[in-house]
């Protein structure tokens, strides 16, 4: 399946999903948060696509644009096809629907993103800190994170 065909199938399945204009080395689509779960379900279950591996899920903190970029890396062993799905949420109210009902691993990847970047997941079955203690304040991978403990490397 070529990249054009892939985008064609995706827009057919979910009209709100658009090919991303961001530079990326993998085929990339952008989708609004409301349509994420529906799109992901279709990406996995549609026999033409069958993206049944969620390779990675993480987030990027764009401080200047005041956005969180949620990145989902999918792979389809059947078509040997990669796809990156991007979702943008505002930085002051970062809430994304969970996709842990589609891939079990998403539950834990999402917990990691919550722990380090403070993105909240709607309807998540067990949203709590993963690496840090439950009483840790702040989200260390945010660009605005400040901590007196951190040592700067001398110039």
């Amino acid at each position: 399946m070529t990249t054009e065909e892939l985008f064609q199938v995706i827009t057919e399945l979910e009209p709100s999903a658009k090919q991303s204009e961001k530079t990326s080395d993998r085929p990339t689509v952008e989708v609004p948060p409301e349509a994420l779960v529906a799109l992901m379900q279709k990406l996995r279950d549609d026999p033409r696509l069958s993206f049944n591996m969620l390779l990675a899920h993480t987030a990027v903190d764009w401080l200047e644009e005041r956005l969180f970029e949620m990145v989902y890396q999918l792979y389809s062993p059947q078509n040997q096809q990669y796809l990156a799905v991007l979702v943008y949420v505002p930085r002051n109210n970062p809430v994304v629907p969970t996709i842990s009902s589609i891939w079990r691993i998403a539950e834990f990847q999402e917990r990691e993103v919550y722990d380090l970047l403070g993105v909240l997941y709607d309807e998540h079955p067990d949203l709590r800190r993963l690496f840090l203690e439950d009483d840790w304040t702040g989200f260390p991978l945010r660009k605005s994170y400040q901590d007196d403990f951190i040592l700067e490397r001398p110039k």
Partner: protein
Amino acid sequence: MSVNITTLDERTRVTSEADSALDTEEYFVNMGPQHPATHGVLRMVLKLDGETIKEVIPVLGYIHRSIEKICEHSTYRQIVHLTDRMDYLSSIMNNWAVSLTVEKAANIELTERIEYIRTIVAELERIHSHQVAWGVMGMDLGAFTPFLYGFRDRELVTDILEETIGARLTMNYIQPGGVMFDIHPNFVKKVKEYIAYFRPKLDEYEDLMSGNPIIQQRLRDVGTMDGETALSYGATGPVLRASRVPYDLRKIEPYGVYGKADFNVAIGTAGDCWDRYYVRIEEMRQSIRIIEQLIDNIPEGKFMVKKPAVKIKVPEGRYYGHVETARGVLGVFIVSQGKDIPYRMYFRTPNFHNLWCTTAIAPGGRIGDLVAITASLDLVIPDIDR
């Protein structure tokens, strides 16, 4: 909309009361973070009914060293040495993952020689990693001899690598734009000698452990996981392949010179601990085959196309690259703004994803089975926590 943030205390509260006259009650037991069978500082809170496991709650973070934060302040060459310390048993392959992604993004052309050297040292390291996995599995299941056998043979691999690289464990060898040093003049000879030495030893491994009735009983039909569950839990590497999914990046999208080598992907049939154990034995055989085919054909050429002093700038964009390490797929996700340091770096580590399989396959079994399961998953904890 419902966002509900919980804590570990809430998760581990006893909910069920004693039922009937038998007075059985669910209770929680801590396993780790200081426990000899968890290979490090993994903590698992077990919800038990008698000795039967009801639920496994892995608690992480006892070796969370904030590598991703440090990466945001480091150049790409500095990042390479941090990856050594994630999955230290496949440090060369971790270096490769970063180098491969950076090279692809920055359009760095490599010579044939670099690709050959990289493939051979990575396969040597895969062998030594599986030797450790094999030995430690024996130790977890109560047999000390496999540990001694595994480490006896591993020392010889580290000798070969040390002669070229200068390190025994954290190699820092593969760099964006080549490898740090050319191979030692003795390298080819020693690798051939090692292969001749190790092939009969592998049969010895089988004599020692594979046929042993205790090992068979501890591993067969324990922790069975079908392919669909494994995919859903994001498992990769020997864990996924043991569940009958022939997903191996070396075969699917060959990097290095894997495309030139003839080898088979080992897969299991039932997806139990035994299959995960045996897939590793078979992978050692296949690694020997790969090395044998490549070792005589290392072409002449440069071993480094970019001098280490050159700061590599990655053009703006998002880049994802991955390699097959000894434990599964290590993915590297770079968000660059065109500088010599990344804006955001994310490591999709194999052990983080493999770990959660315990929550699916351990419930219903006994605590002893959980030891076999964690041993068969071959977890390296700093790779989970980063």
